[in-house]
């Protein structure tokens, strides 16, 4: 009996220690895709582009060390980009295994990118594999890009630090520092597409070819520099050069599975403020007492917005109360807004601008697309006693009829490191600042 037990013990031990099941995988027997792109196919349903690390210097995961060999043709920041056409995402990636030396795994995929064209036709067929396939994690980010996903991924590189995967995660987190785009994990996007309360939205991105910024040549230098505060730009339109081409700005709006439009950078900020997702960002307004001068604020939400909804004569009414706090970043006009009597004026002015912006953004989603990305349906649902009644009412159909009242309270809490702005003088003893005018 003892012998039998010992034999059994060793058999089990061998079985466990050698991991001899068909599911054992050496970590570096696989390549881990960082980004998956989906474009419309020409020969087949979908064109899939994947990016995976080469495990050489700076190879995506940030584990690469020198000595692994030189960079290969087509290598981007220590990663390779491969494209294939297939009937589905899973089939395509499986097909790519025929030309890859290691098994392609999804477990570390950070982002999935849909081209705008594909998003407009509908992403239903591509949501299922991510929601259903065990390797894909629902914390990956969803992006809709202008142009093709293939080109987008080819430009997905890092110029700061070696790890592309780290760069990708930090790039998505930039939403918290600017508020120009939302951070949308697949989990949230997918839930919204099947939700009776709301509809989906995601990051809108594009490649900046650095052509929107005009050169500082003779004619341009002579022009006056106009003040533009609410620059409602689309991805790829930010006037800049340098750094990486990829930029996230604005958000793609979906009706069900199809993209129906997009919100620009400031509309996105208003959306984030109204939904309580806005963390912080520099928000610039024009000084009403000194047109042409800007007042930038370090803006944040004072508390989560309070949203309530009820019906009045069968019309849904939504009330949104938003409270924001700001610190003064600068007063270009040097008007003494720091004083108590003026700071209240500034508060009202800031609140009016934000309120107008939010109302305009809500109207746009109602009138142009009838798409409730704000999730007001969740508050409307409070007015129904059963899910059956709520589904029969079909909020998503009635969103456009809703009357939405927005109330914003702004409070400039701090004035930075200065308590007042002294006038600037020149050698003619002329006070240039408008404070004393």
């Amino acid at each position: 009996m003892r012998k039998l037990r010992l034999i059994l013990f060793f058999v089990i031990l061998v079985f466990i220690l050698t991991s001899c099941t068909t599911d054992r995988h050496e970590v570096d027997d696989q390549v881990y895709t960082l980004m998956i792109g989906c474009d419309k196919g020409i020969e087949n349903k979908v064109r899939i582009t994947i990016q995976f690390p080469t495990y050489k210097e700076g190879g995506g995961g940030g584990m690469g060390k020198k000595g692994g060999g030189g960079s290969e043709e087509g290598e981007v920041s220590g990663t390779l980009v491969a494209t294939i056409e297939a009937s589905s995402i899973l089939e395509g990636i499986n097909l790519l295994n025929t030309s890859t030396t290691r098994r392609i795994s999804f477990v570390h995929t950070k982002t999935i990118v849909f081209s705008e064209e594909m998003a407009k036709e509908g992403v239903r067929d591509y949501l299922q594999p991510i929601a259903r396939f065990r390797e894909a994690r629902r914390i990956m980010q969803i992006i809709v890009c202008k142009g093709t996903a293939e080109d987008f991924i080819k430009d997905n590189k890092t110029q700061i630090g070696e790890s592309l995967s780290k760069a990708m995660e930090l790039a998505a987190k930039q939403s918290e520092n600017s508020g120009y785009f939302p951070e949308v994990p697949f989990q949230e996007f997918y839930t919204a597409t099947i939700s009776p309360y709301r509809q989906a939205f995601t990051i809108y991105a594009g490649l900046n070819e650095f052509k929107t910024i005009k050169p500082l040549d003779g004619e341009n230098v002579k022009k006056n520099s106009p003040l533009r505060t609410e620059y409602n730009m689309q991805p790829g339109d930010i006037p800049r050069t340098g750094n990486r081409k990829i930029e996230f700005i604005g958000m793609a709006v979906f009706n069900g599975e199809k993209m129906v439009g997009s919100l620009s950078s400031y509309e996105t900020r208003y959306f984030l403020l109204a939904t309580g997702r806005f963390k912080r960002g520099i928000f610039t307004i024009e000084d009403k007492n000194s047109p042409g001068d800007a007042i930038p604020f370090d803006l944040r939400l004072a508390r989560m917005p309070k949203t309530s909804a009820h019906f009045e004569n069968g019309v849904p009414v939504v009330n949104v109360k938003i409270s924001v706090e700001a610190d003064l970043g600068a007063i270009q006009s040097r008007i003494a807004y720091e004083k108590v009597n003026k700071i209240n004026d500034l508060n009202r002015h800031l609140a009016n601008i934000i309120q107008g912006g939010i109302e305009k953004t809500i109207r746009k989603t109602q009138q142009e697309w009838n798409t409730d990305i704000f999730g007001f349906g969740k508050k409307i649902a409070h007015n129904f006693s059963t899910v059956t009644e709520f589904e029969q009412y079909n909020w998503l159909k009635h969103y456009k009829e809703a009357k939405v009242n927005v109330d914003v309270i702004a409070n400039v809490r701090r004035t930075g490191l200065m308590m007042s702005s002294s006038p600037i003088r020149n050698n003619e003893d002329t006070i240039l600042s408008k404070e004393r005018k």
Partner: protein
Amino acid sequence: MIKEGKIGTIEAISISTIFLITKAFYINPGTVIKLMSTAGWYATEISVLGSMLLFLILYLLMKRFPGNDLVGIFDIAAGKFLGKLFSLIFSGFFVYYSGVNIREFVEMIKAYILPYTPPSAIIILFMGIVIAYAYAGLEGIARMGYLSFIVILVGLVIILVLPFPFYDIDNLFPMGGYGIKASLQYGALRSSAYSEVAFLAFIINSLQGTKNFRKAGLISLAFAGIIIGTIILCSLLAFEYPQGSENLSALFQLSRIVYFSRFFQRVETVFIFIWVMASVITVSITFYLAVSIFCKSFKIPKYRPFLLPFAFCTFLVTLLPENISEIVEKHTNFLRSYSMFIVYFIPILVLIIAIIRGKKGVKEKDEEA
């Protein structure tokens, strides 16, 4: 007779609660949300109340025959033939329960972790552990159950708290689900999902009295109601009801969406750890009960020689379902919606027979005291 030893009330509560809540690691929360949508989290308490009511009727039977376990009561109240028949039904039921539970475990483990491992390899390993537990006997299972219960509770708290950034209280509205009628109907029917607590009636002699039996049963039912209700609530808060009804395992999905930073994510290992622990304890109890009821009904003093034959029977049951759809739609649906017709209604029938025939047990001295 089999010497089962003594177990304390806390140990009994621990193993009973584990036995009751293991289903929440599988498809159960998704099924409840599918049937009752936003009302699922509180409608499951209707099932608990229903089960408590039936358990109290079972308690009346046990109180009528102090010092006897359910197998003994079957023999006394219903006669040798019917008594044995009832006992064998329960023995068979627990074999079936073990088999279906193992197969559900295997399907889940294949869906999430080991997709290409042969199911028989997982089943054999699992069965090996279950046989070892059963070999150790009820006392061994109870001691391990007590230890595991603490670990399972800590793990559950971790998994349910960490996804809080995804929680939205508005997802619980409209609160009425598919209506009061549907909630009551499914809530009452799914009392079966909490009927496992009746197993305490088979080990009542180890619990040292009917009062401990009642205490352990009611407390474990209350615990299970709170735990399963909370799991369904968290699933609704994170996923809304349409997606909540899609998930194969609500708890696993909750653990997979945890993301705080690049360094704090992928906590599903916690889930796997407690999931395996709970499943092993549950199947060990049901497997042990199947063997022990069989032996008790035929007055066989040693149960250990029967472990391997019963393991073989359980293995055969695990092979019955052809796919996961069959497990979900037929087998687990039967266990969680209709098992009370066996687990509660046979003892209630025996109670009625006992009342009609005027059969009663002899009060023990300590019971009288």
